[in-house]
């Protein structure tokens, strides 16, 4: 059982405003009873309610039909990943994987040569190019264990 004091009601008003629906459910009923018995607290509730009304003048944005369509289309768009799109751009007859394989082979050779001859290690450069990746970020937070905050 929690004991709700007048000071606690003031703290609730300061944090959550005047609407009891926003107050923690465990304290809500006791806090309401206290307000009903205390005219000074009731005046503070009215003051907080006026401020809530001011905050409520901010309109609630509504999604456009185009956004809804785009969001619902994500599975279709995601299904055709970058390899499919590249294949669609290939203007010649024959499978595009042949020249692509050549490019990959050249890249691998370049990386091997670069890493083995450079004085700068991969570990040295790892932090330089760290950037936000929403997919990796979502995966990291998906278990709920350990909140990951992206810090700019």
């Amino acid at each position, binding site marked *: 059982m929690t004991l709700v004091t007048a000071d606690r009601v003031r703290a609730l008003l300061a944090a959550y405003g005047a609407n009891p629906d*926003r107050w*923690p459910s465990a304290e809500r009923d006791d806090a309401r009873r206290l307000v009903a018995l205390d005219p000074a607290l009731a005046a503070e509730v009215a003051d907080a309610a006026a401020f809530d009304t001011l905050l409520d003048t*901010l309109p609630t944005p509504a999604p456009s039909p185009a956004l809804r369509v785009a*969001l*619902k289309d994500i599975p279709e768009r995601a299904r055709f990943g970058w390899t499919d799109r590249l294949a669609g751009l290939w203007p010649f007859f024959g499978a595009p994987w042949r020249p692509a394989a050549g490019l990959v082979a050249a890249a691998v050779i370049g990386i091997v040569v670069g890493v083995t001859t450079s004085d700068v290690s991969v570990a040295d450069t790892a932090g330089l190019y760290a950037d936000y990746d*929403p997919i990796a970020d979502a995966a990291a937070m998906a278990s709920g264990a350990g909140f990951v905050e992206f810090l700019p």
Partner: protein
Amino acid sequence: MPEDDPDAALMPRIADGDPVAYRALVDRHTDRLLAFAERLVGDRASAEDVVQDAYLAVWRTAARWTPAAKVSTWMYRIARNAALDRLRRRRPTVDPETVVLVDTADRADRQISTRQTSAAVRGALDTLPERQRTAIVLVHYEQRSGAEAADVLGVSVEALESLLARGRRALRAALEGQRADLIGGEP
């Protein structure tokens, strides 16, 4: 596991690539997620990008989701981080002249319309530190419980209440003139 999570049953289906289950999630959360994003980043185009990032991430990583996290909380977290990324990239181009929207001129000559008042609220919200703004958007505008908002922010409920109280105090100070006009009295 959050036993009262109505979205939990959708997640295994989404992880299996079921677009019907995914679209049900879109129907349930898009309104709130867009409102949350727009109130954080301050403009529609960026908010729509944030929401698209969030849903793409949900679609791609649904298999990694575990019931330890409430689905809506996880989605708010993803959207918040995507919004933070956009705010970070925008910061160098912000002109301070464009974000000072709170008019402190002589109130006797002002007739403040609802649109002007909401612009003042928008401007005041934008000046809050990001954590305070997120706390107020989640609790006041999105009507999330204190516990869920604390979870999104990765803080205790006590810390959340401190963020809320500081944020509301700062907003009151910034909006004192508008408040007097709105309620027809002196601040």
